[in-house]
């Protein structure tokens, strides 16, 4: 995901703002990292440039 996508992402559970913790970057692209909700503290992975923002319960069910 591009870093400016942060402007339009929100926590799927509480709709709070997310904080980006990038582990692998390629220019303005985040390849791997974590998005953490500042409101409810839930975290979401970024893998292969795609942020996985499925609600945690569904993320676990779908594996």
């Amino acid at each position, binding site marked *: 995901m591009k870093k400016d996508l942060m402007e339009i*992402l929100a926590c*799927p559970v509480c709709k709070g703002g997310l904080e980006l913790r990038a582990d692998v970057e390629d220019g303005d692209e985040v390849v791997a990292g974590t998005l953490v909700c500042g409101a409810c503290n839930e975290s979401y992975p970024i893998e292969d*440039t*795609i942020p996985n923002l499925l*609600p945690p319960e569904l993320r676990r069910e*779908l594996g």
Partner: protein
Amino acid sequence: MPVDNSEIKELVRERYGARAQRVIELAPVVAEGHEHGDGCGCSVDAACCGPADLEHAMRLYSEGQLAGLPAESVAASAGCGNPTALAGLRPGERVLDLGSGGGIDCFLAAQQVGDSGRVTGLDMTPAMLELARKNQANLGLTNVEFVQGELEAMPLPGDSFDVIISNCVVCLSPDKDAVFSESFRVLAPGGRIHLSDVLALTREGPAVADAESWVACAAGAEYHEVYVGRLRRAGFEDIEVKGEGVEFWDDGEKGTYTNTAGFKVTARKPG
């Protein structure tokens, strides 16, 4: 509800993931078919290019629209209409595609909104997202992003889109009220929603009710009055329903789609 909601979700992910995987594996074959050196003159032509999946898209999209799109995005499409054709997208608009799949509608929308606009594809299936990203890289489009998320719990802030499009996806959801209330929330005031979807032709509903038929977009099809009622309860106004007039099913599938058809549904969030 004849079938379990989580069973539907799991099956949708499995089947559409398999569809994306098949296209990813077929990609070299499709690409070969698209070397036009033999003067076949086609842009995306099933007879020329092999995979029968392309035929499906050719019933729904104009040749001009498909020209220039990666064959993989066309082959992965499993829509029942052509929502960007009616969305009247303008340069600079912010577009959200619900259930973006291989990305075909996102790419068409991206061409219409231009560099000052932005298109976001939301999908829950990892293999489809992988395919969409590959297609995007091939096209070199920079105004499209793909996000893995659920239509019923969108990872997006409120009032952040001008237009929502979706192609044959809401019928897959076992909780359409949640999809519509989330759509209403993320649309900016005055924003519009343009859905291509499968609806039932009569109050009796679809002829089938099993989980597999949900995944095929048949069993989850609702009578238009029920569907419109859900949109209205979510807050939408100026709701219109029109027949799509396109047979999106293959010959062998007709029985599954008894008493259903493709429709275009449009509505607006009050400004």
